Every structure is written in structure tokens, then in C-alpha cells.
């Protein structure tokens, strides 16, 4: 018998006479993280990102957002960038900005991407309660942009902010989980990379980006 058959047969035999946990019925789901009634989700998101050592820069409009992005790139002396295609960013003009600044846009294999000093991405959603960004991979949306470079700049509009992970899951269920068929990788990012391996002492900036900057753009009413 194949290992598969063996194992499944063994499991079926184990469960044949009685379930180990009778009465484990689906419970009413309660969300994990507290959000106060009437709480301002944008303010909460900003506070949570800051808590996990990320930075949020608020922009009243696209021009301001481009200025902030420009400042981030120049202050970090960025020469090369790996980025999502502009069609997937909530902000027009990033590519033109890079050209103006003489910053090279790198593509292709890991070795060339690894030379980039910054990654620029959008985000599908942002979770207010935990300060989390949800990014899905796809055409024009390389995973590496939020992973390899030391600086990660995420561009986000306020209308992408939803309360919690539970709300994200509910939305995906309503959409029949299409994202998990289309995207080989969905990543929930909460802050910049960190470790507590040395005496459980938190250190920020390990293998992933050392710094996370969110440029949060106001929506036009």
C-alpha cells in the first residue's frame, strides 16, 4: 500500500468508532482583537503600524504622496528600486518620479533584484486593528519588492483600511477565495522584520526589510 493509503486508512480506523472530540461544533466566531465602537480606523491603523516600528506618512493628495516618496528615496540614497507595476499602485507618476531622480528600476532574477535599495508596492488591504498590510503576488506584483530591499515603501489609500483579519477572511469568503487560486503567495505584513531570538530581546531589521514606510493617501470624497 502507498504511504498515502496507509496513512489515510490509519486515520479512518482511528476515527471509525468514535470521534475523539464529540461536540466540537462550529462556534460563533468572535474577533480576536479589540476595536472600540466608533473607533477611527485610520487613526488606529497608524497607531498600530507605529507600535510595530513602522512609519506612516499621511498625504492629503497624490502630489503630496509623490513628494513623500521622493523624500524617502533621496534620504535613503536609493539608486535602484524594485517595484510593482504602476497599474497596481494607488498612485500615478511614481515611475516618472524615479526617472527624474535618476533611479534605476530593476527586474528579473533574484541577483539583480537583490541590488535594489528600496521596494515600492501597493497593498490589497490594510488591517486597522493590527497595523497589517495584505499583499498578494501576481502579474506586475513581484513578491521580492516587499522582501529583499532594506527599505519597503507601501503606497496605500485610506479606503483600503478594513477593521481586522476576520473582516479580510469574510471578504475573501464572499469572493470565493479567488485570491488564493490566482496568487501563489499572499503575505500579511505587520511591521518591519524583527527577531527576539537573543534572550527574547526584540531587534528590528533581520532578513526582511529593515524599515517599513507606509504612505497613506487620503481619498477624494
Amino acid at each position, binding site marked *: 500500500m502507498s*504511504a498515502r493509503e*496507509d*496513512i*489515510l486508512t*490509519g*486515520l*479512518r*480506523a*482511528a*476515527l471509525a468508532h468514535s470521534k*475523539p*472530540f464529540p461536540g*466540537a*461544533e*462550529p*462556534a460563533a466566531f*468572535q474577533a*480576536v*482583537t*479589540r476595536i472600540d465602537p466608533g473607533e477611527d480606523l485610520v487613526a488606529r491603523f497608524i497607531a498600530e503600524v507605529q507600535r*510595530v516600528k513602522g512609519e506612516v506618512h499621511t498625504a492629503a493628495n497624490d502630489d503630496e504622496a509623490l513628494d513623500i516618496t521622493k523624500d524617502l528615496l533621496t534620504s535613503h540614497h536609493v539608486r535602484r528600486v524594485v517595484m510593482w507595476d504602476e497599474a497596481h499602485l494607488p498612485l500615478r507618476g511614481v515611475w516618472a518620479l524615479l526617472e527624474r531622480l535618476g533611479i534605476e528600476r530593476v*527586474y528579473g532574477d*533574484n541577483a539583480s*533584484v*537583490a541590488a535594489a535599495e528600496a521596494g515600492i508596492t501597493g497593498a490589497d488591504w490594510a488591517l486597522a486593528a*493590527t497595523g497589517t498590510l495584505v499583499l498578494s*503576488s*501576481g*502579474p506586475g506584483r*513581484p*513578491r*521580492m519588492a516587499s*522582501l*529583499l530591499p532594506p527599505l519597503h515603501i507601501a503606497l496605500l489609500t485610506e479606503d483600503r483600511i478594513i477593521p481586522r*483579519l*476576520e473582516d479580510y*477572511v469574510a471578504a475573501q*469568503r464572499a469572493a470565493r*477565495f479567488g485570491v*488564493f487560486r*490566482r496568487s*501563489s*503567495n499572499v*503575505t*500579511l*505584513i*505587520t511591521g*518591519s*522584520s*524583527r*527577531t*527576539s*531570538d*537573543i*534572550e*527574547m*530581546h526584540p*531587534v528590528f531589521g*533581520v532578513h*526582511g526589510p529593515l524599515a517599513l514606510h507606509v504612505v497613506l493617501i487620503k481619498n477624494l470624497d
Partner: protein
Amino acid sequence: MKAESFEKIVDHALADRQLQVALDRGTTRGVNARLLAMSETTDAQALRHQARLARERALNQLPELLEQLERNIIANGGHVLWARDAAELNQHVLTICRQHNVRRVVKGKSMVTEETALNHALEQEGIDVVESDLGEYIIQLAGETPSHIVFPMLHKTKEATAQLLHDKLGMPLTDQPEAMTRFVRGVMRQKYLQADLGISGVNFAIAETGTIATVENEGNNRLSISAPPVHVAVMGLEKVIATWEDYAVLVQLLARSATGQRMTVYNNLISGPRRPDEPDGPEAFYLIILDNGRSRILASEYAESLACIRCGACLNACPVYQNIGGHAYGWVYPGPIGSIITPLLRGPLTAPKLPYASSLCGACQAACPVEINIPDMLLKLRRDLVQAGDPSLGWRLGMKGWAVAFKSPMLYRLGGRIAGWLTRVLARGKGHLRWLPPPFNGWTAHRDFPAFGTPSFRERYLRRFKGQPHDSKKP
């Protein structure tokens, strides 16, 4: 277990100053972080129960969920392999390595591969394996094994870590964890980019979409599974869960219980290999599902132990672990949950001391995000050991004698009187004894023993109510 006796290993651990400092700093931080994070939820008690039910539902329908998981992964372009035991899992990985001409492997954290000693199997075939988790990497450099499920190098102080990095890799000495971390980042970068294959563990496998979820903070796992052209994920078969709603509660309680975070920095959700239109990610994805004794546990009265989500909270909370550290447990899984799954996975007589290495204080159960009743299972394992004839003849006779005496009020009173008299004589008026004969010398090794009071409560009671005892039942 190793050849050295459990007692010896414990004695070494207790006498190891460096270890004691590291354990104290680490577990205190861990416990406080968890308590704070759990107190900030909507309702810790209700959520733990919700998480528990999610695990129970999954275990109740394991075969169906595993099949569903497999179907969905294949539909997404991935491969699923099954392994009855450790050797079979390692063999699968070696075969994949051969197919893809793999020479260099980079690994994210995985307890299952510790269980199967995969690194060793790969190295024997001449394949270069690098652990990418900071802690695991340092442990690998030191030639040691992890001592904690979540914090593999909890047994090391920062001073010892710096010395190791200095000796092995020439890092300038420092006592700053920040500097050490930055140094290792630099070393690891190239390894990711050169690796031919990445291996990761699995924290949850969501059956309804065929997605595997890993949680991590460093980004090493994400790199290991995104940068190399092939990704192999390995999981114990109990890791599968039914729905995304279950994932949402479990992953958050895992983060809060393990590190006190609301979410870990990266939650990677992998549904098969890179799609044809995606710019990056591995071209091949394999999931290996390991049994290695788990289906046997499911059939036993220890099925509850399969609900574990490996958060490590019970380790931090355990006063025994706090004192002896993880290595004393002798195998991959330390701490309270290790004392249960080690004998279950490897056979009760391979680790006969572990079920006894607990005062049954219940701190583990109170800490567990999925309400696993660890003390109860430790008691059952002790019962199994007794039934297997493990305790010495002396203990067995002693217990028989105890039962005979304590089920007879007369013998009980007589024994009490003799013991009382003996203790008072030996105490020589000081109220306590500094020495007791074997086997009770274990007591007096660390504390005094009181001389029994006299007269007994029973006598006092009879005196007080002489002639009108309230008792309706004569002895």
C-alpha cells in the same frame, strides 16, 4: 534518551550559570509578553475555547481535510507527498533534490525536520543545508540542537552568542543583539540567493483552499520559500485546519501566546508554485505530509496532544522548564508538551522520566491557547508507566503498602502515630528534621521536614466532643 541519566543532565543544567541566566531572562519576558497580549483581546477565555474547537473540528475530520488539502494543492499546480515515518520524509526530500539537481538548501524553521533529522540526511548526500532563522542558524553554527519550540537558542546568553559569532565567523565582539543580528543578516543574504531549494515548516494548512500558512518575524521563512526555484514544505498531518475563519483565530492566538505580538511580522500564505503570469516565486512546490506516529496518537486517549499549535507558551510558563531548560528533555520537543509527545511519538519507555518531571502545577494548561490539559495527560502517562512495570520494585511495594494502610482507618492511625513519634524523636525538640533516610532523603536534600504535631486532629476532636461525637458512622 541520551546515555546520560536524566538526573545527571538536570544537575548539569541547574549548575550551569550561563544557562540559568538565559532561562531566567527569556522565560520571564515570554510569560509577561503573553499575559499582556492575551489580556488585550476581546475575551481571552472565549477565544481560547474558540481556538480549541477549531483544532478539535479539524482532528475529528483529519482524513477528509487532508484529502481536500491535497486536491486543492494539486489544482493549484503543487505536489503532495505522504510519509509514514521520518526516513520516508527524508527520502522524499532527497528524491526531490535529485530531480532538481540541488546542491544548496536553505531552511526556514521547522520542528518536523528536527524530528526527522533531515539536515543530517541531506548532509550525508553531500547537500549543503543552512538554517535561515537567526536562532536556528546560531544553533547550527554551534553544533547544538534547539532548546525551545519558538526560541531555539533560549539557552544562550547574548554574551555566549557574541563569542560564538566571533569565533566562527570573525564578528567583532559586542554585547548588542542589534549588532549581532545585522552581522548575521549580511552573512545570510548570499545564501538565500544561491540556494537551489528552500524548505519550510507549516504552521497551518487550510484545507478549503489548499493553502499553507507559516508565521515568522525575521523574513527568513519568506525568503527561503520565495527566493529558491523549488519550495518544499513539510508538515505533521495534524496541522491541517478546515477553514479560514479557524485560521484567523488560531494564527492570532499563536502570535499572542508565542511572542506576545498581535500578529507576527510575516504571515505567509502559500497556495502552490508561482503562477505562469507571476514575476517571481518558486517554479515547483511540494508539500510533504508526515505521520510518524500521529495517527496512532489520534486513536489513543492522548488525541488532545495533537491540538497543539507549537506556540511554546507552556514552556515559558513551566517552572520546571524555567529551571532545567530544553535540552534536558532529551529530544526535539521540550517542556510540558514535550514531556507528552516525546513518549507518545517515540514510545513510553524511551523517556520514562519525563512524565514525572512535573509538579502538576497546571501553569502549562493555564497558558495554552488551545486549552490542552497537559497535567491530565502526564498523569495518564504515569499510569501507563506503572502498568508497564517501569517503577522500581521498591516504589511498587511502597505504594501497595501505602494503599493497604490508608484504606484502613486503624492502620492509618497506627501509622500516623508511629511516624509522628519517629519524627519527634529525630527532631530532638527542634520542631523539624534536617535528615531523613532514603528514599525520603530527596526531601531533606533541600528542605527541613516538620515533626508531626501531637495529638492528632482526630484525638483533639474526640476529646472536644467526648460522649457526643457528631459522627454517625463509627470507624
